[in-house]
């Protein structure tokens, strides 16, 4: 886009000889690039066998270098839930729900027999409960709920004996999970009941949950090993759709809810697939159409398409090699690259118009400095995206820079060899070139002042309406229906938030468990007040040894006394059963399959310390959040972590930082322009500045929030928009230069316009900003073009 005059001299005698020498050297360069392209081709072929594509939002966010423990904890929790999904079937009564479940499972089995599904039903909760009962039974005397502890501490042995007698002789013989002798006071079922209600684990009757006037059956499922591929096909969703339809045939009024990370991942992949196709193929078709209209020949179309293809392939390969994985958002963003990388090819053909085939080597040498500078400015603009320490943005920056560079190299290395024919100057291109004259040059007049005043008012009001938004959810693009179901399932099953939790640290496992217990005492009060739905803590399933010993002593004393009294009253000596001699130990517990559902809460040894997390179900309102947060106050080693808030804070921080950098960048650019154009510099600079301000004002008028991604788009606009001004200043009055600007702007504008259709809010913000920005720069630049066109000897020279 930027073109700096080459240094060929008119009528040099050694010109032909030098041309030949240069050409033979250039052959080596072209050959080297061919080898590289072949290597990229091989890598691409292997890449698409099993594309390592990532759809996790968290992967796009920076890891906290300052607190690795926090990142580890978040990752640990996220990993645990990444493979799980759950389907809930709700019917008018339990038997209908059961029938629906049978039909649902049968449909999945039929599908699986035809072609293995990427997911399967998780282990049955019933097996789990039997295993758990066997594990805990020897330690029954060491396991009390908080209420039981209080009750036994204040126990009147006489009253306890009385109610024990009543239950023995009355009808209230609660089903015991053990022999009567092992639990004479009936404490054990209550302990399980408390576990069940506190942990969202449904060990209630028959696994049927009754809520909101319906009977629900929850079907937990998990993804199978490596079979899961995100290839943009609706595999999980389709299988669940078929199963739901089968279940509805049995139970017409059935309500089906689905939740789980794999569903969101698949939805994101399907959507990304669609968007990449729209943006990528849409831009490509538009670019090729523009090329065809301008040059009316097949060769330019094939060569420009080839440069774009190589650019995209190289970008994908290098990104995959550097990052290991390519994120879906990178692919969507990368699809808009087509509209930027086409510039070099178009530039070549625009300059070739009217140049004889023999002159193309000289033309290349003439174009090279300008093309290099154009690549450099665009690459710098993209690299500025990578300044923020977001792995996602860095991926996008790397992808774009590599793509541009590869398209650029393809143009300069191969086009002179492959483009041997004539390039015609068509009426279409001439018409575009001449259209520059339609723009009046701006002069200081009353009309100009009036327009300026009106514009200032509109901009001022627009800027006043700008609101910022740094919500992490701008990266999230799940379909609203799926989000609604996820929330509903979360409410029914009491699923905890994976991004907000308490982090507990200590020097030893025992200390961590004791600190957790101090916290859960407070959390239970909140639960009793219905401030939170519940909490999940490892100490609920594995009390600290201190607690176990205290409880064992308490039950031994009270149960012993009650049994002695009972024995007297019933005239039969009653012996207390034997229990395990020692406490339930952490290693044994972790080794048992029983701990599997809770193991994610135990972070274990992290550096010098041991750590665990406590998750909260149903956090409720922001005010409630503050109250929950306050529970960590005054407890050593306990800390409230809110990753959502952290990330929002981070996005805000970088929005401010990048705004500052944008301002600094603009000053820097102006300095460079001043160095080259002196008193004309403002004419080059002002269109882009105006476009930036107008774009932000337009966002204000449209009610679109200002976020980091708008600011980043403005950075890109600065890098690309200035080029139009430079171009008009460099080639004053040259119609082919104006044509190159128009076609370049049109394709860039279209690509980002298509990006503005993305369902991901961040990418939409990016696309919209550039859609306004590029259009405005293109429109405004000609008004500020410098007046008298100086002679352009180089151009004359090439077209001799």
């Amino acid at each position, binding site marked *: 886009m930027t073109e700096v005059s080459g240094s060929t001299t008119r009528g040099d005698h050694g010109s032909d000889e030098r041309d030949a020498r240069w050409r033979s050297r250039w052959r080596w360069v072209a050959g080297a690039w061919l080898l590289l392209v072949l290597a990229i081709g091989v890598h691409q072929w292997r890449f698409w066998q099993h594309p390592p594509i990532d759809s996790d939002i968290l992967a796009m966010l920076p890891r906290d270098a300052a607190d690795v423990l926090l990142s580890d904890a978040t990752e640990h929790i996220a990993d645990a839930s990444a493979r799980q999904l759950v389907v809930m079937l709700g019917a008018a009564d339990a038997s209908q729900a059961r029938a629906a479940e049978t039909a649902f499972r049968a449909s999945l089995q039929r599908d699986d027999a035809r072609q293995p599904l990427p997911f399967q039903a998780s282990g049955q909760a019933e097996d789990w409960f039997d295993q758990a009962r066997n594990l805990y039974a020897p330690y029954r005397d060491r396991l009390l709920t908080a209420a039981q502890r209080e009750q036994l501490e204040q126990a009147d042995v006489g009253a306890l004996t009385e109610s024990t007698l*009543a239950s023995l*002789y009355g009808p209230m013989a609660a*089903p015991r999970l*053990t*022999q009567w002798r092992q639990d004479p006071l009936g404490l054990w079922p209550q302990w*399980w*009941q408390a576990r069940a209600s506190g942990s969202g684990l449904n060990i*209630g009757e*028959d696994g049927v949950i009754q809520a909101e006037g319906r009977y629900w059956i929850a079907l937990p499922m998990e993804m199978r090993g490596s079979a899961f591929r995100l290839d943009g096909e609706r595999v999980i969703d389709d299988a669940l759709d078929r199963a739901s339809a089968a279940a509805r045939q049995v139970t017409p009024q059935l309500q089906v809810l689905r939740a789980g990370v794999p569903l969101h991942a698949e939805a994101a992949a399907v959507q990304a697939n669609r968007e990449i196709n729209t943006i990528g193929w849409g831009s490509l078709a538009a670019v090729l159409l523009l090329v065809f209209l301008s040059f009316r020949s097949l060769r330019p179309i094939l060569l420009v398409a080839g440069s774009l293809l190589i650019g995209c392939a190289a970008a994908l390969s290098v990104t995959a090699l550097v990052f290991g994985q390519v994120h879906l958002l990178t692919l969507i963003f990368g699809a808009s690259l087509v509209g930027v990388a086409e510039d070099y090819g178009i530039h070549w053909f625009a300059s070739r118009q009217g140049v004889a085939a023999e002159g193309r080597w000289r033309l290349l040498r003439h174009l090279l400095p300008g093309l290099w500078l154009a690549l450099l400015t665009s690459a710098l603009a993209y690299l500025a995206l990578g300044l923020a320490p977001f792995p996602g943005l860095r991926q996008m920056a790397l992808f774009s820079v590599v793509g541009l560079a590869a398209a650029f190299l393809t143009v300069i290395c191969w086009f002179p060899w492959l483009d041997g024919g004539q390039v015609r100057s068509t009426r279409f291109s001439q018409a575009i070139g001449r259209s520059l004259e339609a723009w009046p040059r701006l002069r200081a007049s009353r009309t100009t002042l009036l327009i300026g005043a009106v514009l200032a008012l509109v901009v001022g009001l627009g800027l006043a309406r700008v609101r910022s938004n740094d919500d992490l959810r701008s990266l999230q693009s799940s379909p609203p229906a799926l989000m609604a179901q996820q929330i509903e399932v979360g409410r029914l099953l009491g699923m905890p938030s994976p991004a907000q939790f308490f982090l507990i640290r200590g020097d030893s496992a025992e200390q961590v468990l004791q600190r957790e217990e101090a916290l859960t005492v407070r959390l239970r009060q909140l639960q009793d007040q219905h401030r939170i739905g519940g909490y999940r803590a490892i100490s609920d399933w594995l009390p600290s040894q201190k607690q176990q010993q205290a409880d064992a002593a308490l039950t031994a004393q009270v149960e012993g006394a009650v049994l002695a009294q009972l024995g007297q*009253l019933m005239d039969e000596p009653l012996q207390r059963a034997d229990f395990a001699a020692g406490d339930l130990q952490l290693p044994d517990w972790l080794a048992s399959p029983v701990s599997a559902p809770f193991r994610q809460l135990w972070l274990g040894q992290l550096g010098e310390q041991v750590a665990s997390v406590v998750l909260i179900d149903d956090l409720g309102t922001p005010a409630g959040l503050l109250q929950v947060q306050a529970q960590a106050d005054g407890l050593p080693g306990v800390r409230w972590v809110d990753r959502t808030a952290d990330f929002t804070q981070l996005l805000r921080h970088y929005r401010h930082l990048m705004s500052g950098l944008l301002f600094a960048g603009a000053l820097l650019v102006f300095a460079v322009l001043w160095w080259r154009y002196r008193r004309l510099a403002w004419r080059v600079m002002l269109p882009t500045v105006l476009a930036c301000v107008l774009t932000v004002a337009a966002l204000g008028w449209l009610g679109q929030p200002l976020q980091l991604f708008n600011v980043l788009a403005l950075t890109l606009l600065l890098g690309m928009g200035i080029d139009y001004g430079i171009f008009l200043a460099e080639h004053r009055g040259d119609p082919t230069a104006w044509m190159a600007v128009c076609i370049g702007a049109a394709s860039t504008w279209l690509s980002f316009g298509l990006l503005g259709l993305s369902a991901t809010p961040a990418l939409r913000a990016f696309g919209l900003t550039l859609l306004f920005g590029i259009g405005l720069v293109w429109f405004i630049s000609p008004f500020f073009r410098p007046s008298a066109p100086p002679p352009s000897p180089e151009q004359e020279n090439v077209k001799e």
Partner: protein
Amino acid sequence: MKSMLSSLLLGVLLIAGIAPAVRAADDLSLIQQRVAQVEVLRGGFEQEKRIAGFKNPLRSQGSFLVARGKGVVWTTLKPFPSEVVITGDRILSRQRDGSSRVEVDGREQPALRSVNAMMFALVSGDVAALSSRFNTQVQAKTGNGWTLSLTPKSAALAKAFTRIVLNGDSYVREVEIEEANGDRTHLRFVELSQTPARLSADEARRFD
């Protein structure tokens, strides 16, 4: 969970005592035809429990009161007096000294709501609901007699019960419960009466 056994026990009683549901499986309709449909049922009981850990069976006697739409009052008189009141939303126990304690509150423990709902279905005599949880086997006897044998359909319920057998004619006369842990309860009902069909004020107060 805690109330599972009691609710079942009482529910089974109530199929006999209170008007059964209209819908039922064919074999159950035999029982529905033979059992008297009443608003209120009063009677006495004799219970014998065999519990592991006790050498001797635990024998008790007392009376009960069942009212449609209200619930059940179960009064043990010998050898140790106590009383249990079961209504739609709670289970309450009264001690000898007159103090009472809520054993289960359906409002405070949502997890228990499904158990209470089941009990409620049983209290209202929903035989269809019962057969949805149990495999039933009916045996007609000479005269008006019948035997109903129930085995749990679900693994969860089978953790609590092995089998429940009812014997009766126009009322349930005998209940035999086998728990999964081997404990057994045998109940015999005596002096059953369905008149007067309305609760006295004194009786009504006992449900509060």
